[in-house]
């Protein structure tokens, strides 16, 4: 039976824990989250960090939580990109904390 972590995380859950659990994968490892979690909370409550800075200055774990700083982007196993603070968890999502390619920030025409 999958259990959510209550204390080991970077973020601590203070309530609302009576929600169904959802499983996702981060860098190939299973992470148990709760329905209604943002991806950011799901990952940080499990004790991991969100991403590696592309500029070589270490791990990052988001900053503003309101979709403004863009310091919480993660990558999906399918090659997509998600903003972890504004994206809700979805069962089966496979996330990656490090960019695979250089082509990161396309500007649309």
């Amino acid at each position, binding site marked *: 039976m999958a259990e959510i972590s209550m*204390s080991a995380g*970077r*973020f*601590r*859950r*203070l*309530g*609302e824990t*009576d*929600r169904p659990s959802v499983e996702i994968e981060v860098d190939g490892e299973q992470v148990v989250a709760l*329905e*209604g*979690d*943002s991806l950011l*909370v799901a990952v940080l*409550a499990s004790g991991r*960090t*969100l991403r590696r*800075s592309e*500029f*070589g*200055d*270490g*791990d*990052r*774990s*988001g*900053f*503003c*939580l*309101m*979709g*403004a*700083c*863009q*310091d919480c*982007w993660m990558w999906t196993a399918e090659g*997509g*990109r998600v903003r972890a*603070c*504004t994206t*809700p968890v979805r069962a089966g999502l496979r996330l990656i904390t490090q960019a695979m390619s250089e082509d990161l*920030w*396309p*500007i*649309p025409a």
Partner: protein
Amino acid sequence: MIIVGAGPAGMRAAEALAAAGIRPTVIDEGQLSGGQIYRRQPVNFTRRYEALYGADAKKARALHKAFNALQGRIDYRPETLAWNLRDDVLHIVTDGVAAALRFDALILATGATDRLAPIAGWTLPGCYSLGGAQIALKAQACSIGARPLFLGTGPLLYLLAYQYLKAGAPPAAVLDTAPFAAQVKALPDLAVRPGFLARGLMFRARLRAAGILIENGVEPLAIEGEGKVAAVRYRTAGGTERRIACDAVGMGFHLRSETQLADLAGCPFLFDAATGQWRPDADRDGRTPRAGIYVAGDGARLLGADAAEAAGRLAALAALTDRGMEVDMAEVARLRRRMERLDRFRRGLATAFPWPARLACAVADEVIVCRCEAITAGNIREAAVGKDAPELNRAKALSRIGMGRCQGRFCSSAAAEILAEARNVPLAEVGRLRGQAPIKPLSMATVKGERP
């Protein structure tokens, strides 16, 4: 007519337009309406309004109810980003599908984000903006750590520390860069909102009673840790150096308006010397000199949530008047008086919780100012002096400061200070970063399309 933003300002604007028989389109990036202060929790969360919004529960409930009641009379588009504005056309994207909306009138109620100054170590995992730390609690029932420390200045600093205490995550300390004397000096202006003042004092008293250290007039020196936050080092008002262990930091220095769309619309901006920030020029009703463009709420002037509601209504009434429609002038007069009173409060806030310009100027060369691309204070100084950049946009071209994916939202206040200091010119002279589309990064898969 289009409204961007479904916070208190945008919601009240929508209500006023709908009451006049107009069906406005309301664009908001969030999944749920409410904006910052009245942000809603996910639908499967069960905390009550009183637990979520404290003393503001009644206002939150009233506003949510009023907006829900508009269903069917407005074209509300959640999870939709307004990313560009050109020639009276607003460009939006919903779930990867882009569309262009022509408008006669556009009310920008885009709100604010935290205003930041860099501190050594602020990119460490575990360091968040004060607003971010509040969203963790409000929207996700989480604390940012087991022993969070709150640092910076502004009303949110104390409110948040109190909210964490009440939620069962007592802060390690509250470190305010503003001297206590500044808060005393601002009392007459802050007294315009007696309730606000009383609550501020109550927060302090409760934190103290819980044994939480509150320090005023501090100089933050560094956020320390290996791979995660472990401590904050600072200098007290008395000049002693101290270090407090913690596993998370919430930091921020009051707010800055989201003004990118007003900028793309070609609205002229004014420099506000009291706060050192630029804001879109507008009359007391929110009319900008660009015909058909209105600004309201924190995105126009940082007056707080009550004023945002009034400003949203005022801007809507202004748009209706400009369309030749009859509006209740007695209500307009009442709203204007209310806004004037609250503007005094805004000045009080600027006095009580001053932006720490000196801290920003003095930041060491090796400290990262731009979180997006790890551009340092030294890089900016090099652009300012070595490469002779007279203003921010030139400094941006030369150092990449403000070019990252947050578009300068979190570095530009400090970058302007560093540039002005390095060039030895007044802050207003280095100007402001020009807004650029897309104002937030779009998904790689964005396609053109027309929403049914």
